């Protein structure tokens, strides 16, 4: 067992545990915090995979910006205590059934694809010849130029939409 593998197993455990904690916590703030931990452990996965940029972006964007806003809203609304959920009678069996299907599917895929995933994950050498950042920049502004630009349109529109839905016209304020 290499150090990486041990690290991975520990982190995987943390990631799963925090994800479960997020789901089962009865307090919205704790849920959010568990999710932050989950994001952090996933960021370390990226580090282990040799992708520090994505790891840092993950922390900055998800843990640092989005989850802070979540917490902000939860606290501002004072909505941290979740009401007990009414469980529909067929919900639990169905969920368990679907989960079993998912597990079976994953197991099947794992066994089916016994051959190492060498063709999927690019070998480490190609990543390191040119700095990861430069590669990312090249890809973003050459091959993925148009999607990149479209993202900005999407964000602009989303912003306009958010303002439309929340801003009251003058004199409309109660």
């Amino acid at each position: 067992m290499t150090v990486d593998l041990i690290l991975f197993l520990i982190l995987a455990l943390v990631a799963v545990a925090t994800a479960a904690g997020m789901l089962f916590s009865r307090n919205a703030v704790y849920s959010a915090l568990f999710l932050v931990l989950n994001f952090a452990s996933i960021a370390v996965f990226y580090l282990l995979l040799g992708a520090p940029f994505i790891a840092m972006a993950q922390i900055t964007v998800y843990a640092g910006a989005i989850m802070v806003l979540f917490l902000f809203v939860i606290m501002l609304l004072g909505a941290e205590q979740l009401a007990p959920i009414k469980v529909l009678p067929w919900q639990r069996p169905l969920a368990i059934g679907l989960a079993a299907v998912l597990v079976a599917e994953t197991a099947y895929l794992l066994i089916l694809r016994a051959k190492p995933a060498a063709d999927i994950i690019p070998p480490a050498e190609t990543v390191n010849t040119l700095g990861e950042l430069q590669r990312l920049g090249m890809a973003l502004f050459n091959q993925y130029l148009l999607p990149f630009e479209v993202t900005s349109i999407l964000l602009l529109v989303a912003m306009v939409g958010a303002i439309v839905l929340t801003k009251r016209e003058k004199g409309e304020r109660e």
Partner: protein
Amino acid sequence: MNPTTFAAILPEVLLLVLGILILVVEPFWKEKDRRNTGWLTFGGLLAILVVSLLAGRPGEPTSVFGGTIRFDWLGFFFKMLFIFAAAMTSLFMMDVEKLGRRGESYLLLLASTLGMNLMASASDLVMLYLAIETTSIPLYVLSGFIVDDEKSTESGFKYLLFGAMTSAVMLYGFSLLFGFTGTTNLYEIAAAVAGAQVSTVTALGVIALVLVGIGFKVSLVPFHFWAPDTYEGAPTPVAGFLSTASKAAGFAVLVRLFFIAFAKNGLAPDWTTGLAALATLTMTLGNLVAMTQTNIKRLLAYSSIAHAGYVMIGVVAFSNLGVTSVVFYLIAYILTNLAAFGIVAVFSRVAGSDKISDYAGLSRRSPWLAMAMLVAFLSLAGMPPFGGFVAKVFVFAAAVKSDLVWLAVVGVINSILGVYYYLTVLKVVYLYRMEGEAEESHPIPLTRPYGIALVVLSLGVLLIGTLFAPWFSASGAAALNLF
């Protein structure tokens, strides 16, 4: 940037320019002049249509922007359709209260159209997903645009929740596809799938996941729950746009994705069988539930679900003729359904109601509107000489040619079911009278934008139904790009 590259995204660039123009110009107009943004949008969209037809026509299919965009007739044809639908919708939107005088609503419409354009031409999963989101997010906002109307808010919210959920599932599918093939380009994925790199079972799993997202967009049956509620609450022109252009965009993605990426021999029979089952379900459920509706927007919603089923027949046929019939059906359907929703918008603006029973006496209150309704509904029902008839004939013919006679039979039976409820509405319009009132004292005035749009659409429906050869050959040219 070489000219082909630029021509490939010419309509999108122009749409963006128009949108920004509206965003900049609108605040400088006085409150009472704001309705003019509608005319600006309409004029701009027409100009874009003309310019694109003149300068942006594709030649041989080429991949541009690093393979993220496919520049071919299929995409181009759909793009023109979307721009036309947006132009008509902008006319319908102008006189809707709290919507027509806000520049933002037109900007959102344009942005959504831009997204649809990209959906029609995207040949890369990244681009495709972004395009779908660019289409959906403005539409979520437009559905919930009238903030102080609970129905509208509910509509927007439902649409958002369903949309977010299904697009997440679809994204799983995309990520699996990328994981198994190592590329996001549709054509390279096709090669990988054909090269037996992906087993049939995994491919079908991926297809199922992807289908959730697309099925939501085109309102296929297990994913249709949002449609009636959203159409009912959304501002009527927006509902019209949702049920036509947005749906057509979904089909554009569907054919490109399935016919290119999953066209591998031996794989296709599996998914066509599944889709055939879905098509049957969709048609039958849509038509049966539509019969019991008392609200015209909900009726049109279920009818549009049923129509998604008919279009699906063309997809299932999995042939050149099939795609041709899909494209042709969508042309006819967009014209017809836009007209139907436009009429509903006109009526509810005056009468303040969407109940079918309130349409009583419409033929006397406004003969021309009733006439337009007759055209639209008969075309929806699939009666000659209107567009809907020819479209259905082609779709069923495609099914028969691909040895799917049973599916064609199901389609025909469903059309007969459809005739029933379309004619029920027309019965109310033409045969019933308003109770205890003189219809002449309750006229339904048509404002100019409505007039223009309805005339254009009604004539279009007639034109498609009679002189269908040029449209058919154009659809055929578009379909050829997939094979």
